[in-house]
């Protein structure tokens, strides 16, 4: 009973604090504090609901239990992280985005190819590509190569479509100016069109970060060596070790946010001139 009361109090306090904070003039500090308070309140309510109602750890472990498990099994988590994120997701991400970028530059040179490939690419980008996972696992074996292949296929089309669109982003006036400077195709590409395409390219790169993680993890459901985040999640669910599953989720969330945040920071540095980054 005490825990439930505690939960209600935490909820009221968190809500009140946020209402008070949001009335303050908007600044960097309040912009950061409000979501943090919201998150902490959620965790406290979660903890007190699990303890107060005596929910079995097999269904929903308390945040404290998850944190404990996280600290206790950093070895396993690190091994899975290396297998899934560094070997599977990251190599696939680099390779897939790089291939899509080069393809886009080639496609952009030939208007015929562009008109044909863009609708097809848009169509493929909306398909449930994750379904390719079992096929690619069959082709490339159980180890990280097949996961990287899944990631390549998943990130390729969103990246391709965005880059091709970005290379179109310059207007005729700007291209004419480059022509009056007597700059050739490659100079125009390097000095005008690629920089102008950067906001679009980064949009594609950001979409691809989440896709890469999802692809690498889900591909492990179709077969993997005895390590990896997807493998650990599916086997731990079978063993009802839900605290370990949640610890893996925490890792995935941290990695996902860091990955996305890293690309966003890079974007800020590269496209500092764009209106969306100036405000």
């Amino acid at each position, binding site marked *: 009973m005490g825990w439930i009361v505690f939960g209600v109090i935490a909820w009221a306090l968190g809500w009140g604090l946020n209402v008070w904070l*949001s009335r303050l003039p908007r600044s960097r500090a309040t912009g950061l504090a*409000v979501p943090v308070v919201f998150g902490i309140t959620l965790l406290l309510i979660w903890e007190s609901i699990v303890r107060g109602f005596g929910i079995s750890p*097999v269904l929903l472990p308390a945040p404290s239990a998850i944190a404990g498990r996280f600290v206790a099994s950093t070895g396993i988590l690190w091994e899975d992280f290396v297998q899934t994120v560094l070997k599977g997701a990251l190599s696939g991400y680099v390779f897939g985005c790089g291939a899509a970028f080069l393809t886009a530059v080639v496609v952009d040179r030939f208007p015929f190819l562009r008109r*044909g490939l863009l609708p097809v690419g848009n169509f493929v980008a909306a398909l*449930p590509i994750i*379904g390719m996972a079992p096929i690619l696992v069959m082709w490339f074996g159980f180890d990280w190569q097949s996961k990287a292949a899944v990631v390549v296929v998943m990130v390729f089309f969103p990246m391709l479509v965005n880059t091709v669109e970005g290379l179109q982003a310059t207007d005729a006036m700007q291209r004419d100016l480059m022509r009056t400077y007597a700059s050739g195709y490659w100079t125009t590409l390097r000095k005008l069109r690629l920089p102008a395409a950067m906001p679009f390219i980064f949009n594609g790169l950001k979409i691809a970060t989440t896709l890469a993680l999802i692809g690498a993890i889900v591909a492990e459901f179709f077969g993997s060596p005895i390590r990896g985040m997807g493998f650990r999640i599916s086997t731990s669910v079978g063993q009802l070790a839900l605290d370990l599953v949640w610890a893996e*989720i925490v890792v995935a969330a941290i990695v996902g946010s860091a990955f996305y945040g890293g690309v966003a920071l890079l974007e800020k540095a590269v496209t500092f001139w764009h209106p969306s980054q100036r405000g």
Partner: protein
Amino acid sequence: MRKSFLPVLTVVAAIFVLWYAMAVVLNAAWAKDQAKRAGVELSFSELVADTWAQDKPKLPAPHQVAAEIWETTVEKKITSKRSLVFHSGITLSSTLLGFVLGTVLGIGLAVGIVYNRVMDMSVMPWVIASQTIPILAIAPMIIVVLNAVGISGLLPKAIISMYLSFFPVVVGMVKGLRSPDMMQLDQMRTWNATASQQFWKLRLPSSMPYLFASLKIAMAASLVGAIVGELPTGAVAGLGARLLAGSYYGQTIQIWSALIMAAALAACLVAIIGLIQRVTLKRMGMA
């Protein structure tokens, strides 16, 4: 439209040519192996013919997949467990339920975010952060846990679809509900419009183009969620189950046919939303 018809046709044709060529390359090893065991030398045309007609090829040729789809959709009874229509129906129902739930949740959150400063500051960052968690990865846990609580069948899969589909709706609707500019809002104020009138007559109508754009993304995401949600249920029914069963038994043709079916389903659903969008926006005088 007509201008891009020929290029698209060319690209699609190129994909088919590439597909057939890849089928020859990938399946050649098996064909040669079989021929060696039988003690016969394969000519090139025989090799090609064999690679396009294997039982469990590494990459089935398009016509094999087409034949399998025809067989499992038209020639089987819809109620049969081997009918692809039956499995598509199961996936479709959880996709649609998840899509509806996600859209309702997304619009609700967006309205809250636009009208409530506290929600805007506290919820929006978490909505964005929630998408960096690969929900598909924890789909098995959600299914198993909800099953233990006694919720099984359609709803757990729909919840995964909902989680994937609410995000584009929130982002699109927040943008859309904020799209009326100062001038229009001031105009409403000079007409002494109440908050609800401002919402129903200005903000909601002007958010429609944004809503439909996000609905298309949400629908595609919802289908992916439903397919992945079917994986951990032990390959009972649905397109995801067909994928998993196919990968267990090496039935590549079955995997590909399920995959093509899923692609067709996604294309149809998105096309339907596109149609509704065109009709609605035309009647609203926006397209």
